[in-house]
C-alpha cells in the first residue's frame, strides 16, 4: 500500500502514473506564484539551442510537476525527475561536478523521502530543511552549487540557478508553512535564519573573489538563496511566536526576492553564455572592453547587474529593503540574545549588500568596460538574436518589479494570506516611482545646466594614465598588464575579509568541513569494501562461520530472555 499525506484539498487526478494511484495535481496561490516565477525563464531559455535536448524538457516537466503536485508522491516524483534530468544536462557539460551533483541530489532525495511520510514535527522539518536546503544551496551544503551550476550550457545554468533552487525553496515553504504548519516551533525559523545568513556571507564574499563569470553568478545565487531563507526564517519564527505582521513583512521580502532573482539571474547567466560563445572564455581576467563589440549584450548585462547589486530603482532593492526592515523589526522585541543575534545579522546583510555591489561592479567594470585583455575579447561580436531576445524579455519583466513593487506585493497578498492566515499587510515604505521621477529631474536639470553654462568642446586624446606615455603601435589597446584584473580588483577584499573567512587558500568552508570529510569517509569505505573483496577463501568461510555463531548466540539470548 502506498501511503501519502494529502497536501492540498482540491485536486485533479490524472490516471497516468503508478497503477491505481496516478498523479494528483492542484493549484493554489503559492503554486501559481512559483509557476509565474518559472514561466519567463522557461520562455527565455527555450529560445536558445537547449530546446532541442529531451533532457531539458524533462527538467522543465519535473519542476512544473513538483510545483503543481497535490500530494507527496507526485511531489517527490517531480523532484526526482528534475534532479535526474538536470544531472544529465550537467554531465553533458562537465563530468567532474556531475558526480558531486548526483551525490547531493541523492542526499536531497534520501532526506525528503522519509520526511514527506512521517508525522509532522521537528524531525520531519529537519529532514525537509536538509533535503530542500541541500538542493537550494543553503549553507553548509552549498559548496556543490558554484561547481555544478556553471557546468551545463547557459540556458540550463540559467534555469538551474533561477528555477531549480526556487523549486527547492517552494518545497521548504510548502512544508514549513502549510503541511507541517500546525506543529511549527520558533527554532525552525532560527535554524533557517542561521543557515541563510551563513549562505549570504559566504555567497557574497565568493561572488566577489571568483574569476569565472558563471561561477561568480552561481556564488551570487547562494547569496540570494540565503537572503530568501533569512526572510522565510524570520517569517516562520514570527508565525510560531504569534506575530503575524512581522511574519507577513519578512515573507513579502522573501517572495519578492524570489521573483526578482528569478528574472535577473537567468538574464545574467544567458549573457555569460553569450560571452563565452563570443570570446571562448568566461574568465574575467581574459575579458575587457566587451561593450564596444557587444553593446546590446553589455546594456542587458548592466541591467542584470543593477538588479544583482540591489541598488535603488533596480529590481533587487525592494526585497532587500523589506528584508532589512523585517530584521530591524525582529530586533525590536524579544529575548536579549535573539536581539543581539539580529543586530549581527543586520551587520552581515550590510556587508553582503556592499559585496554584491562590488561583485556587480566587477563584472561590468572588468569584463565589459576598460581595455580588452585578449585578442578574442577585442574581436567579440554581438550575441545571437534569440539570446538577446530572451534576455530582453527578462529585462523588460524586471521593470515592473523595479518601479512598482507595491503592485507586485498586492498580487502576492493571496499567497501571504494562505501562508500566514490573518496577517495584516503593511504598506511599502519605499516608493521607486517618485524617486525615479526625482532622479530623472535631477539628471535633466544637470544636462540643461551643462548645455546652458558649459562648453560643448570635446577632444579625443590618449588616456592620462598617471602621465605614462602612449603605448607603441603594436599594442593597439595599450599594455594589457597595466589595468586592474578581476583577481587584482578583489585583492584588497581577499586580504582583509577573505583570509579571515575562507583562509589563505580561499577554500569554501562548506568544502573544507562538509565535502572533504565525506570524501575521506568515502575512501575509507572503499578500502574496507576492497579488503572484503580481496579476502581469501578461508577468511570468507571464517566470516560466514562467525556470522552464524553470532546469529545463533543472539537467538539463544532472545529466547532465554
Amino acid at each position, binding site marked *: 500500500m502506498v501511503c501519502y499525506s494529502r497536501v492540498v484539498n482540491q485536486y485533479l487526478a490524472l490516471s497516468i502514473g503508478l497503477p491505481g494511484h496516478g498523479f494528483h495535481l492542484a493549484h493554489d496561490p503559492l503554486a501559481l506564484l512559483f509557476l509565474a516565477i518559472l514561466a519567463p525563464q522557461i520562455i527565455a531559455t527555450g529560445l536558445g539551442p537547449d530546446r532541442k535536448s529531451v533532457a531539458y524538457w524533462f527538467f522543465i516537466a519535473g519542476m512544473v510537476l513538483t510545483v503543481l503536485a497535490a500530494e507527496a508522491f507526485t511531489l517527490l516524483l517531480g523532484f526526482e525527475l528534475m534532479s535526474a534530468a538536470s544531472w544529465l544536462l550537467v554531465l553533458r557539460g562537465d563530468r567532474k561536478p556531475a558526480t558531486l551533483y548526483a551525490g547531493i541530489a541523492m542526499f536531497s532525495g534520501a532526506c525528503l523521502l522519509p520526511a514527506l511520510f512521517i508525522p509532522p514535527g521537528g524531525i520531519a522539518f529537519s529532514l525537509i530543511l536538509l533535503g530542500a536546503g541541500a538542493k537550494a544551496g543553503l549553507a553548509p551544503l552549498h559548496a556543490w552549487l558554484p561547481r555544478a551550476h556553471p557546468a551545463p550550457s547557459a540556458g540550463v545554468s540559467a534555469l538551474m540557478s533561477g528555477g531549480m533552487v526556487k523549486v527547492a525553496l517552494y518545497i521548504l515553504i510548502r512544508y514549513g508553512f502549510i503541511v507541517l504548519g500546525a506543529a511549527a516551533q520558533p527554532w525552525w525559523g532560527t535554524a533557517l535564519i542561521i543557515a541563510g545568513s551563513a549562505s549570504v556571507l559566504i555567497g557574497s564574499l565568493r561572488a566577489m573573489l571568483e574569476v569565472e563569470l558563471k561561477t561568480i553568478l552561481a556564488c551570487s545565487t547562494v547569496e540570494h538563496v540565503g537572503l530568501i531563507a533569512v526572510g522565510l526564517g524570520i517569517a516562520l519564527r514570527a508565525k510560531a511566536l504569534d506575530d503575524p505582521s512581522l511574519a507577513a513583512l519578512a515573507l513579502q521580502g522573501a517572495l519578492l526576492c524570489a521573483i526578482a532573482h528569478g528574472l535577473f539571474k537567468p538574464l545574467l547567466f544567458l549573457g555569460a553564455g553569450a560571452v563565452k560563445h563570443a570570446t571562448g572564455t568566461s574568465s574575467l581576467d581574459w575579458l575587457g572592453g566587451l*561593450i*564596444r563589440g557587444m553593446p546590446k549584450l553589455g546594456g542587458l548585462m*548592466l541591467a542584470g547587474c543593477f538588479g544583482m*547589486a*540591489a*541598488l*535603488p530603482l533596480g529590481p533587487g*532593492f525592494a526585497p532587500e*529593503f523589506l528584508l*532589512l*526592515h523585517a530584521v*530591524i523589526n525582529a530586533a525590536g522585541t524579544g529575548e*536579549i540574545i535573539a536581539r*543581539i543575534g539580529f*543586530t549581527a545579522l*543586520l*551587520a*552581515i546583510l*550590510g556587508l553582503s*549588500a*556592499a559585496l554584491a*555591489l*562590488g561583485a556587480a*561592479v566587477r563584472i*561590468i*567594470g*572588468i569584463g565589459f*568596460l*576598460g*581595455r580588452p585583455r585578449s585578442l578574442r575579447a577585442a574581436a567579440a561580436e554581438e550575441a545571437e538574436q534569440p539570446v538577446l531576445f530572451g534576455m530582453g524579455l527578462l529585462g523588460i519583466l524586471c521593470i515592473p518589479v523595479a518601479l512598482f513593487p507595491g503592485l507586485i506585493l498586492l498580487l502576492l497578498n493571496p499567497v501571504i494570506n494562505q501562508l500566514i492566515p490573518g496577517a495584516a499587510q503593511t504598506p511599502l*515604505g*519605499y516608493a521607486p516611482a*517618485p*524617486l525615479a521621477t*526625482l*532622479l530623472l529631474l*535631477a*539628471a535633466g536639470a*544637470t*544636462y540643461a545646466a551643462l548645455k546652458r*553654462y*558649459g*562648453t560643448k*568642446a*570635446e*577632444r*579625443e*586624446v*590618449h*588616456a*592620462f594614465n*598617471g602621465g605614462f606615455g602612449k603605448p607603441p603601435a603594436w599594442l593597439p589597446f*595599450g599594455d594589457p598588464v597595466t*589595468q*586592474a584584473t578581476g583577481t*587584482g*580588483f578583489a585583492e*584588497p577584499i581577499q*586580504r582583509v*575579509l577573505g583570509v579571515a573567512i575562507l583562509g589563505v587558500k580561499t577554500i569554501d568552508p562548506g568544502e573544507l568541513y562538509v565535502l572533504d570529510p565525506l570524501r575521506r569517509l568515502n575512501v575509507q569505505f572503499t578500502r574496507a569494501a576492497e579488503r572484503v573483496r580481496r579476502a581469501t577463501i578461508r577468511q570468507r568461510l571464517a566470516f560466514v562461520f562467525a556470522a552464524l555463531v553470532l546469529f545463533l548466540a543472539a537467538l539463544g539470548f532472545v529466547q532465554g530472555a
Partner: protein
Amino acid sequence: MLRALLAVIATIIHSVLVFGLAPLLMGIVSKARARLLGRTGPPYLQPYRDLAKLLRKTALIPDTATQFYKIWPFITLSATAVAALLVPSFSFGLITAPLSDFITLIGLFALARGATMLAGLETGFGFGGAGAARDTLFSLFTEAAVLVLVLTFVLLAHTPTVDGIGIQFRDGHIGLSVSLGFAFAAMLCVALTETGRIPVDNPAGHLELGMVHEAMLLEYSGRYLALFYYAAALRLMIWMSLISAIFLPFGLADSSAMLTWPGGLVSWGVKLIIGAFALAAFEVATAKMRVFRVPEFLGVALLLGILSSVFLFVATKLGGT
C-alpha cells in the same frame, strides 16, 4: 492644503540652499584648514570658480573610453542630488519626508558610489581600478555600520525615516545616553569615510598611489569632472546636514510653522559652520592612514554601532519595558 503648500515652499528653499551652498561649505573647510596651518588659503568662493573654470574647458575624452563614459557622472550626481532632497536641512516636514527612509538613503549613496567605481574602471588604467577596489573595501564596513546605526535610531524613534527620527530626537526627550554617544562616534567615522576626508582619504592629495576617490576620476576632465566635483561637495553637505538633523536637531524648524523657519535657518547655518571648522581642525590634527589600516578604523565604527544597540537592549531589559 496649507500644510502641503508650506511644505512645498520649504522644500524649494531647502533645495536652493543645499544645491547653492554646497561648494561654499567645501570652500569654508579648505579655508579653515589653510588658516589652521598658518597659510592664507584660497578664497571662500574658490570652489565656484573651479567649477566655472571646468565648465569652460574642453573635455578630453580618453581613446579607450566606452560609450558609457559620459553617463557615469550623470548617475553619480543625480543619485547624490536625490539624496540631498531627502535629508532635511533647516526644517523638518519637507514634501519628500515620506520618501526619506534611511535604507533608501543608504541605497542612493550606494548607487552614486557604484557609478563612480564604474567611471574609475571605464578607461582601463591601473589607478582607477585600484581606487575602485579600495572604495569597495571601505564600503563593506560603512554599509554594515550604518545599518546597525539605523537599528539604534529605529529602536529609539520608532520610525525609519530620517525626517521622523530627527523630529523624535528633537521633541521626544530622548536625552543623552551612552547608546547615542557610541552611535555619534560611529556615525562620524562613517561620514569621514563616505565624504572621503582625512584620515581615510585626502581630497587635496596629489599622489595617485595614495588616492581613493580622486583616483577614480583621474581620466575625467572638463565639464564631466565638474559634475563629479559638485557631487563630492553635495555629499559633504548631505552628511553634515544628516548629522545635524539626527544628533543636533535642536532649533530646526517645522515646515508647517512658518515662524520657526528663520530660527531653523540660523541654527542650520551655525551648525554647518561649526561642523566645517571642526572637520578642518580634525583634519589638521590627524594624519592620513595607510589603506589597510582603514578597515580597522571602520571595524571600530561597526563595533561601536553594535554596542550602541546592545546597550539599548540592556537598558530596556533593566527598565522592564
